[in-house]
């Protein structure tokens, strides 16, 4: 065996690969972002600084700069890709901004007034016979109970009606049948009803039945279900239509009746989506103010009877706390923010429950 090593086959120089093209460094987007933030800060410091202007200008500089740089070094297609990607991200951040801002404001203002007493006690005035002073204690218990009762009754009315309507539309009605088209049309119209109209409807309906001053939690529930039914119908209809026709056919081919097919195959398959839709509908109406304000009015007294007398709810408490403050204006405002925060917490809890339920009921399997 000779000891000579065969010369390396690889050429020492770079081979020109016809598939390569110019490329910007890997983290160019982050450099570019830092650069445009700095540049925008410098420009604005000369003109007077404000945060919103700084961010907007930075975004504009970033998009234009990246576009120019990329089309110079890379090519048109990549430049377009980078700019559009930037635009989409900016749009997303813009959509997120009001949401986060609202959340921060509510938490910052409301956190101070939330404590155990606020949650578990009702508002009341206490007369001290020694000092002859009247002190008001602020509590949200009556509003929490009212919100839960009114929304609960609305859900009890709307969920069965909504789910049964969507079952009719998807499983029973012929697609072009006049009845199905009428129902679909009415549901669409109802989706667009302003909530104040629903409140007026419920209030005038109960005024006709009960007479003047017909404030009650139940009539507020009626107003809310007018708003809630179309949402439930719509979301359940979508979910039921997602159930593959194959499964219904498989069930029919086993000699299973239509009723059993719907209750034991179609509904269980769609249950996760239906639960999510229902929870979103509840979250949508739980924060309604105008219809509840009209139909149930407002009160500081504890009232757990939905059929008699005004009933307090969290959104109405937030509204009246600001609009009709008591003698201690600061305390009223604080309780309004507290009610708003409680409402947000309630909605978050409902959403979490919806997610857990959807996860538990979701069809299992590796698909």
């Amino acid at each position, binding site marked *: 065996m000779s000891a000579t090593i065969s010369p390396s086959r690889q050429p020492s120089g770079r081979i020109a690969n016809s598939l390569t093209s110019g490329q910007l460094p890997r983290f160019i987007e982050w450099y570019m972002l830092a650069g445009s933030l700095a540049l925008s800060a410098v420009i604005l410091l000369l003109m007077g600084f404000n945060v919103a202007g700084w961010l907007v200008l930075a975004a504009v500089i970033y998009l234009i700069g990246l576009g120019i740089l990329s089309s110079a070094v890379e090519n048109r297609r990549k430049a377009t890709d980078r700019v559009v990607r930037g635009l989409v991200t900016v749009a997303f951040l813009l959509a997120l901004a009001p949401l986060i801002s609202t959340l921060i404001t509510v938490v910052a203002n409301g956190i101070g007034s939330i404590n155990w007493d606020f949650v578990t006690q009702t508002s009341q005035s206490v007369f001290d016979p020694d000092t002859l002073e009247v002190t008001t204690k602020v509590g949200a218990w009556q509003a929490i109970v009212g919100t839960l009762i009114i929304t609960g009754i609305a859900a009890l009315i709307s969920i069965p009606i909504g789910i049964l309507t969507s079952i009719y539309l998807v499983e029973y009605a012929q697609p072009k049948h006049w009845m199905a088209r009428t129902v679909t049309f009415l549901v669409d119209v109802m989706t667009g009803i302003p909530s104040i109209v629903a409140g007026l409807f419920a209030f005038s309906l109960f005024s006709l039945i009960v007479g003047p001053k017909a404030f009650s939690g139940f009539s507020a529930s009626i107003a809310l279900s007018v708003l809630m039914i179309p949402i439930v119908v719509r979301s359940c209809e979508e979910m039921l239509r997602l159930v593959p026709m*194959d*499964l219904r056919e498989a069930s*029919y081919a086993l*000699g299973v009746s239509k009723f059993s097919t719907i209750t034991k*195959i179609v509904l269980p398959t769609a249950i996760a989506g239906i639960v999510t839709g229902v929870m979103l509908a509840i979250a949508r109406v739980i924060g309604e103010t105008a219809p509840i304000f009209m139909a149930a009015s407002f009160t500081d007294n504890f009232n757990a009877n939905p059929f008699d007398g005004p009933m307090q709810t969290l959104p109405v408490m937030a509204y009246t706390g600001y609009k009709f403050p008591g003698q201690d204006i600061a305390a009223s405002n604080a309780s309004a923010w507290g009610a708003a925060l409680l409402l947000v917490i309630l909605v978050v809890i409902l959403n979490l429950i919806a997610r857990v339920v959807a996860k538990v009921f979701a069809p299992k399997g590796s698909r």
Partner: protein
Amino acid sequence: MSKRIEVNDLNVYYGDFLAVEGVNINIEPRTVTAFIGPSGCGKSTFLRTLNRMHEVIPGAYVKGEVMIDGNDLYGPGVDPVLVRRQVGMVFQRANPFPTMSIRDNVLAGVRLNNKRLSKSDGDDLVEKSLKGANLWEEVKDRLNLPGSGLSGGQQQRLCIARAIAVSPDVLLMDEPCSALDPISTLAIEDLIEELKQEYTIVIVTHNMQQASRVSDKTAFFNIAGTGKPGKLIEFDETTTIFSNPTVQATEDYVSGRFG
């Protein structure tokens, strides 16, 4: 258990559209009958009329007679649900119920018909049906896992097990192997061979080798053109259809000259 099917002058309509015209056919018990023909010629439509599954499609109806052991499927007062309990069906795409375990899928037909079933009877039925579908050895240790976790071929055999668990007299198969690999196809063809001992089997297939492998008799359907109704052209012993058909169109089709 298996029964004879007699079809007299059957027309199938979708609304105003005549989809299948003038079918006359006699299917003997304990045989495998294959329907072949180009796409859109009405094989599947006709197959569905044998257990009234075409009624799931809005506007579909038939004229004519389908007799199963002398009982007319389309006579007045016939309950389609009762028909389908006697005539089971397996579909092109495996469709196990996603909310149910393998065991529950097999028992679905019995359970959903609101029949009470003791645990031990259920176990026996599951074992018998899965063994009948050649799936028992593969899934016996995971009966409580979801059916949708099985492979495509296993899912299709699960669907067959589900269909035979309600002990039908006739088993209709609508292209049961078209989405499967050759090995799963072989497993299902072997299964058809075994099921033949107990059931009358009708299978729609696009695969002529499959038709010649599994079937005793073959029916060739054809369509004169788009918008025209599909017709039964020829129905005979499978060997005759593939070696010495009487109609020219059949010979052209099976020899691959068209379609």
